[in-house]
């Protein structure tokens, strides 16, 4: 008996999954060690050179051509991906910590005061354009202020804006899980609060956490990209936003236009990474209550 041939659709699907995992792995490596795949981005007198595997003038690769400063665009893009993704991951981690802390506290205690603060915070977040607040905060610092202080204040605004929505979602879930019989049984058997939370409550929060990550990480990417275009970016920081803004500034140059399209593709990829991972892991990164 000959072995059964695998359906073509399934093979294609599996190949697709492996390709996406490989791309995610490469992105991860670019984020951790950005210079491992490309040359160091050095300034050369060869701006907007066309793409080539090896450029004799600058004596290194120029797979994506050179940028306005004559640097290998692949190298510039690698560094930009690394910078933007690191900021987005760091910010998302801070938001997640805040959301879990505030949401669990509110869900467990049902405090009226905290509930009112969260509700008004949620309304405030909807009513106040966060980019306008960021512009105002970023420009209020003097030029001599240390970059880390300016960047931290901007990150803090973003984190504060992201907490109320996620915290309400977590609080609601914690409240409903706390009312279940298995949590009551766990407490009746003398389990500590931490044990019950870790073993019985937290697994029910995973879908909400997935949704929060999938919506917060792109927000950090979008804000970095948008602010850089508006000329108000994180200080001493060269991320995807600056790469996009510089390519857009020379849009009528064919090479710059090509680099702009590549940068847009990379931004979309980075912003959609959480969604892609959720799809690959078959996790529902969507909360009905969040719409």
């Amino acid at each position, binding site marked *: 008996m000959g072995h059964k041939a695998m359906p073509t659709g399934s093979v294609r699907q599996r190949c697709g999954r492996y390709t996406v995992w490989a791309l995610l792995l490469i992105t991860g490596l670019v984020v951790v060690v950005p210079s491992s795949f490309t040359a160091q981005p050095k300034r050369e007198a060869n701006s907007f050179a066309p793409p080539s595997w090896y450029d004799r003038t600058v004596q290194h690769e120029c797979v994506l051509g050179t940028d306005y400063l004559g640097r290998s665009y692949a190298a510039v893009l690698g560094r930009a991906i690394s910078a933007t993704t690191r900021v987005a991951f760091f910010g998302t981690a801070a938001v997640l910590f805040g959301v879990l802390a505030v949401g669990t506290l509110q869900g467990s205690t049902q405090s009226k005061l905290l509930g009112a603060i969260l509700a008004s915070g949620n*309304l*405030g977040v*909807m*009513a*106040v*354009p*966060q*980019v*306008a607040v960021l*512009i*105002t*905060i970023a*420009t*209020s610092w*003097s*030029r*001599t202020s240390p970059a880390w202080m300016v960047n931290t204040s901007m990150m803090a605004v973003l984190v504060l804006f992201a907490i109320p929505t996620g915290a309400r979602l977590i609080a609601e879930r914690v409240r409903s899980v706390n009312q279940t019989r298995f949590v009551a049984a766990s407490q009746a058997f003398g389990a500590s609060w931490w044990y019950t939370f870790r073993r019985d409550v937290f697994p029910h929060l995973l879908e909400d956490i997935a*949704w929060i990550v*999938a*919506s917060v990480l*792109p927000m950090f*990417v*979008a804000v970095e*990209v*948008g602010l850089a*275009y*508006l*000329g*108000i970016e994180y200080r001493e920081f060269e991320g995807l936003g600056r790469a*996009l803004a510089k390519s*857009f500034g020379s*849009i*009528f140059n064919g090479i710059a*236009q090509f680099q*702009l*399209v590549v940068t*847009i593709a990379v*931004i*979309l990829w980075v*912003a*959609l990474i*959480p*969604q892609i991972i959720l799809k690959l892991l078959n996790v*529902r*990164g*969507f909360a*009905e209550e969040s*719409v």
Partner: protein
Amino acid sequence: MRGVKRLATTLLILISFGTLSVTFAFYIVSRTDELAEERLQMSDVKPPPPEAFSERYARWIKTVVSSRFSDFGQSRTGPVKNIVASRLPITATIGMSSWLLGWTCGLGLAVGLTTRWRPWAQFHQQRLYPIAHAVPSLVVVILFYLVMIQFDPHPSRQLRTGVGIASLVVLMVPSTTALWLNGIQRVLQQEYVRVARARGISSVTVWRRHVLPNVLVSSGVLTQAVFSLAGLVVGSAFVEGVFRLGGVAEAFIAAATHGQAEMAAFATLLYFLVLAAGVLIAEGITVYLDPDGAQSHANW
């Protein structure tokens, strides 16, 4: 009576929120004087300290009130009122057109997804909406600009405005559709809709008399529609910049960067007036459709 009380409370909250925001914007921006820093960067002389907030703010309020709201102070390039007046039409056109089109298209699509294209509803809510929500708005605006210049490298102002509005509508539609759809699906499950259908009332009448008014009152669509203006302010800033249209957002950024607190405060005030008008209209509609607040209280 309950409706009037609700409107009064809303008005009070709006006035406090607006006053706080304008004052905060004035305070933060008044601390910056980038021009002074630039002028004195090469010398040993320290830049002069910015004028005290309280004095400057009091003077601005006095000017605004004594001129009976016809003078909003001076900016580096002229009277604040004139600068905003010259830029407001384009921002208002972009904002209002994309807002109206975005919410109307969203309603149309949501109605379609709950009737004819029902199998696609879940796909929209679980796949399309989260992906569209994650895409940075600037990227979409730039993509629209890129496509436009492939067809016309020297587009007219009208074309740039039209394509800019289209890009904002495309950005808005997935989320507006998701919000309408969520509300419509909840209302369609209600007993009174099933009873109305069982009594043989035509589909159009059921939608017009029962479904849509209840969606408006109970699902929070109105609130979201008003607050989506905040998102449009950001989107409008990108459209104004990318399509080289010039608008209030550009003036606000310039004001914030150069310490022109009067200009920044006036732009903030303008934004809150639009927001307040929207909130009051939304509250008025809710009070008119549900005077006792029974629906809205039951669902919130």
